[in-house]
């Protein structure tokens, strides 16, 4: 069965420290992976998708098919990065429904 696992419910770091939010997936097909973010009192929004291979707000994520991972990284965390982060998997074959992980709350302290 398809599954997305985010092992950490909470990640707490100090400003300026590196951040890595872990995401592992289980899917036998060709995956498309996303990171969504939800800031306090805001709606869920797309942060980045693996096919774009871009950096958004200093965040990057590389799809590692061998390790079935799509970890989100940022070299220097900022306080405004504090939010809830969700990793999501889109199945191939024309199905656009997303399978989400349980989310990781990132808290960046001054």
């Amino acid at each position, binding site marked *: 069965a398809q599954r*997305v696992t985010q092992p950490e419910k909470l990640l707490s770091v100090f400003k300026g420290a590196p951040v890595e939010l872990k995401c592992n997936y289980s899917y036998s097909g060709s995956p498309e992976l996303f990171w969504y973010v939800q800031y306090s009192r805001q*709606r*869920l929004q*797309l942060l980045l998708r693996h096919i774009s291979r871009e950096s958004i707000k200093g965040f990057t994520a590389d799809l590692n098919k061998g390790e079935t991972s799509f970890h989100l990284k940022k070299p220097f965390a900022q306080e405004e990065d504090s939010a809830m982060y969700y990793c999501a998997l889109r199945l191939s074959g024309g199905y*656009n*429904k*997303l399978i*989400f992980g*349980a989310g990781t709350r990132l808290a960046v302290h001054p």
Partner: protein
Amino acid sequence: GAGVSQSPSNKVTEKGKDVELRCDPISGHTALYWYRQSLGQGLEFLIYFQGNSAPDKSGLPSDRFSAERTGGSVSTLTIQRTQQEDSAVYLCASSFGLDQPQHFGDGTRLSIL
């Protein structure tokens, strides 16, 4: 509109009552999705509509749940004979097409007493 609009933002009702949740997608978006987020859990897919195709209902948890999309735009998610385990935030999203990112609404927080 500026984004996906959902109403009501909050709904409190008694166990056994029926509820209707509404979603207005972004104008021009052909795909519309419903998700449920229970406390401490990720988003759970419920149903999606794409154009005039038959909806994918594979995520609906029971036959008490149903959804319609009229005129290819507004959607209503109906939960009949609500149970306490139905308490959750119900999120709607829309996208321009199957290959495009999904844009989410603010959700409806449903509380069953």
